[in-house]
């Protein structure tokens, strides 16, 4: 009886922990965050097959001395579409 009871308590604790992990995975899979205006998400995402844009920084900047914004070649579509939501837009 006592052993069964201990098992019941262990099962409740394990089920609770499992439910938290399941909920985490569920919300992670179903979440759509609102994108704040003016972020990179407003731009169309790059297709996966598109090569990273080359940065002609060296040629464009040569001679002018003007600072040139350099694109990050490692930026992926996932990073672009998951921009930080505004504080009050969180939730769905």
């Amino acid at each position, binding site marked *: 009886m006592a052993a069964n009871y201990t098992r019941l308590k262990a099962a409740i604790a394990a089920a*609770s922990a499992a*439910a*938290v992990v399941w*909920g985490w995975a569920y919300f*992670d899979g179903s979440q759509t965050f609102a994108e704040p205006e003016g972020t990179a998400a407003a731009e169309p995402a790059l297709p996966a097959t598109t090569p990273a844009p080359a940065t002609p920084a060296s040629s464009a900047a040569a001679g002018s001395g003007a600072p040139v914004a350099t694109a990050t070649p490692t930026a992926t579509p996932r990073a672009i579409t998951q921009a930080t939501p505004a504080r009050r837009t*969180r939730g769905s």
Partner: protein
Amino acid sequence: MNRERSTGAFAAFIGALVSTLMLKGADFGHAPWYISRSSGLVAYVLLTLSVVLGLLLSIRPARPLLPRALAFDLHQFISILTLSMVGVHVGILLFDTYLGFSPAEILVPFASDSEPLLNAIGVLAAWSLVAITASFWLRRRIGQRTWRRLHYVSFASWLLALVHGYAQGADTFVPFVNAIYVLSAAVVAGLLTYRIGSRSDSRAPVSNPPPQAGDGNRASRRLASRAASD
């Protein structure tokens, strides 16, 4: 043995504190937000289970079905588990870089500038749960009567948790989450109504005895002294 346990608990607390401070600056993406939501829901379900078990313990027809000592121990265990989940629900928000809650905002009612009332309701529910759970160990010290009265706060605590979850939760209108709220509210309301009804039925003849002259009870003495003073 107690000293070893205290030392272990203290070491665990210090370890958790140091880890928290070390990880505070790290970026976990949306994970803390998802974990907070899921642990909040699990805490609410556990709190409902604990309230239901407590109500069943006090309802006469359910008593033969539950071995009293084991059911009481299970009720206490689920309460502690609920509090642990509330700890996760609240503590993990410290790592959420988007909402950026400070310790004061998650511990002090109305300290948060984001939905202050609903957050305050959640904070109050959590603190009342801490008080009720702590009372399990203070039962002898505070007395059975005070303990019982304090235990009635658990209904208010459950209601505050329901309002906090339903009104502020981002997942209220997910069908299964909505079903959890509706079902839990129906079960607790039903059991509570039954409990109040059965209690008033069983107490009615005892609690309102007609005061009679010469009766030695407190009510009649009070009536007699009032009549004498008039």
